[in-house]
């Protein structure tokens, strides 16, 4: 009988840590990822053809990455880990009592089917950026903060010459300093929150002195690049005809409302904007895993409530790379023990569990400090497109609520088509929920990405071989 096998979906920090922990304990691991190289978004690598000799100039915690990368290479060479790149997973299904099948698309046109069979699956699918709508946010030149960073890290390109970085959340700091270091003029960093609010949360901060040092480092770099910082401010509108030419920012009052007398116009050709992150939960949801709010529910071992399925990293709640590493490590150890028929000893991962506990507390504080302004939806005019794919204006969403009685995202979607387009509501979900005044739930999508009908028709025909 062959040794037990694990399929890890996602080669970011959580997936890498789990892969290494499980492979070191005798589990045969298949690491499946959509990118051409491991790293995920946090450790996104420039394409090899670009010949970057100092890629670390765009990165944080580079030594941690080098260790992960080197250990992965050793396992791949030894044959204990199979790393499948350019594999876009669209579905995971159970076949029989204890076997799982991962379905992916591959090939240059993403039209070829690939299947991986395993005894256990770890979902390490990460997260993506949340952006709330405002007038002008569909103009070319307006990009997500993380998107600007991804294009810079992976393609070594900038969207323009003069950028404003805006929204709320810790991601804005590395994005602003990264764009500036790469040669963009960062005209302003605009955050609706005030990081000083952390001072009032001394317990969460005291638990993570490294985060205080990290924050101070960013402050120094912002000064060095002469980036003006507007706290308690928000972007009210983006302006331009065919592309972005300027933004209007304004101060917020204590209740999170725009103070009209404080509007100022900033010329820029790029707006990098973000309001936090959301977990990718599609695969977990399709498997029937419990999803709490917007995150996959896991126990102390990182197990979902579906047998054989673990989850780690941003998919279980947003908390950054260090938390993802800790969760992945715990998941990998738990999987190795469970697949060997043993009950794992939590004492064996006590250090990772302590890190996990502290970072979850820290990011709970982050979430409460960096909440979007309470009355952001008031700035969204009826004409503003809120669903970018289906071009649904805010007025239509408001009408669906006011005139037609829609009270939840699903009904708004049925009445307006908001969320029915290409992205399946991933981008517009939080915005539509805020404008409709209803709860933002995790979207329910049968597949994690579009699938050619031919692939769908043939899925499941292949013999169980692995």
């Amino acid at each position, binding site marked *: 009988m062959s040794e037990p096998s694990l399929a890890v979906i996602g080669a970011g920090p959580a997936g890498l840590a789990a892969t290494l922990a499980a492979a070191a304990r005798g589990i045969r691991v298949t690491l499946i990822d959509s990118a051409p190289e491991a790293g995920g978004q946090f450790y996104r690598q420039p394409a090899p053809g670009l*010949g970057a000799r100092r890629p670390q100039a765009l990165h944080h915690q580079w030594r941690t990455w080098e260790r992960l990368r080197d250990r992965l290479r050793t396992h791949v060479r030894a044959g204990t880990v199979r790393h499948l790149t350019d594999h876009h997973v669209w579905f995971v299904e159970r076949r029989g009592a204890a076997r799982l099948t991962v379905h992916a698309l591959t090939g240059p046109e993403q039209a070829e089917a690939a299947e991986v069979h395993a005894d256990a699956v770890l979902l390490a699918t990460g997260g993506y950026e949340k952006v709330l709508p405002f007038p002008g946010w569909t103009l070319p030149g307006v990009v997500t903060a993380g998107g600007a960073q991804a294009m810079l890290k992976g393609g070594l390109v900038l969207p323009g010459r003069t950028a404003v970085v805006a929204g709320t959340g810790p991601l804005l700091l590395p994005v602003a300093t990264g764009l500036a270091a790469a040669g963009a003029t960062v005209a302003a960093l605009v955050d609706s929150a005030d990081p000083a609010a952390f001072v009032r949360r001394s317990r969460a901060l005291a638990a993570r002195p490294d985060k205080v040092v990290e924050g101070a480092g960013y402050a120094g770099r912002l000064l060095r690049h002469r980036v003006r910082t507007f706290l308690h401010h928000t972007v009210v509108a983006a302006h331009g005809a065919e592309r972005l030419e300027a933004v209007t920012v304004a101060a917020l009052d204590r209740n999170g409302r725009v103070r009209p007398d404080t509007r100022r116009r900033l010329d820029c050709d790029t707006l990098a904007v973000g309001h936090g992150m959301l977990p990718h939960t599609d695969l977990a949801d399709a498997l029937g895993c419990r999803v709490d709010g917007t995150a996959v529910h896991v126990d102390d071992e990182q197990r979902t409530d579906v047998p054989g399925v673990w989850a780690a990293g941003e998919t279980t709640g947003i908390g950054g790379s260090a938390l993802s590493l800790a969760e992945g490590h715990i998941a990998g150890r738990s999987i190795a023990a469970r697949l060997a028929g043993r009950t794992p000893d939590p004492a064996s991962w006590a250090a990772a569990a302590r890190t996990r506990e502290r970072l979850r507390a820290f990011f709970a504080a982050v979430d409460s400090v960096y909440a979007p302004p309470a009355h952001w939806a008031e700035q969204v005019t009826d004409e503003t497109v809120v669903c970018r794919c289906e071009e649904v204006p805010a007025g239509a969403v408001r009408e669906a609520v006011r005139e037609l009685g829609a009270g939840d995202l699903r009904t708004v979607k049925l009445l307006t088509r908001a969320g029915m387009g290409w992205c399946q509501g991933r981008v517009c979900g939080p915005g539509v929920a805020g404008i409709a005044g209803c709860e933002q739930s995790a979207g329910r999508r049968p597949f994690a990405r579009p699938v050619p009908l031919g692939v769908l028709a043939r899925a499941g025909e292949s013999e169980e071989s692995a």
Partner: protein
Amino acid sequence: MNPLDLVRAEPGPAFTVTLDGREVEALPGQTVAAALWTAGVTSWRTTRGEGRPRGIFCGIGVCFDCLVTVNDRPNQRACLVPLRPGDAIRTQEGTGHDE
């Protein structure tokens, strides 16, 4: 400073692709979107309903705003598709199936 200098890049030889027949230079490994940004192009499609210009938004394959026609295949995500020498990129109108 520019991003290539920042990481001391020594890219492989540049090659040529076309955007609506016009020659655009690309570096090995760059996606369609990265090469177009370098060429100063930030929008390459218009929407089905209002005909509004769109380009990169999320940059990681989630939003589908950056759809483009690559070698006669419409609706490819420019942020994900790596370029190869001679690729023909066409700006896309509406669903990309209208022509």
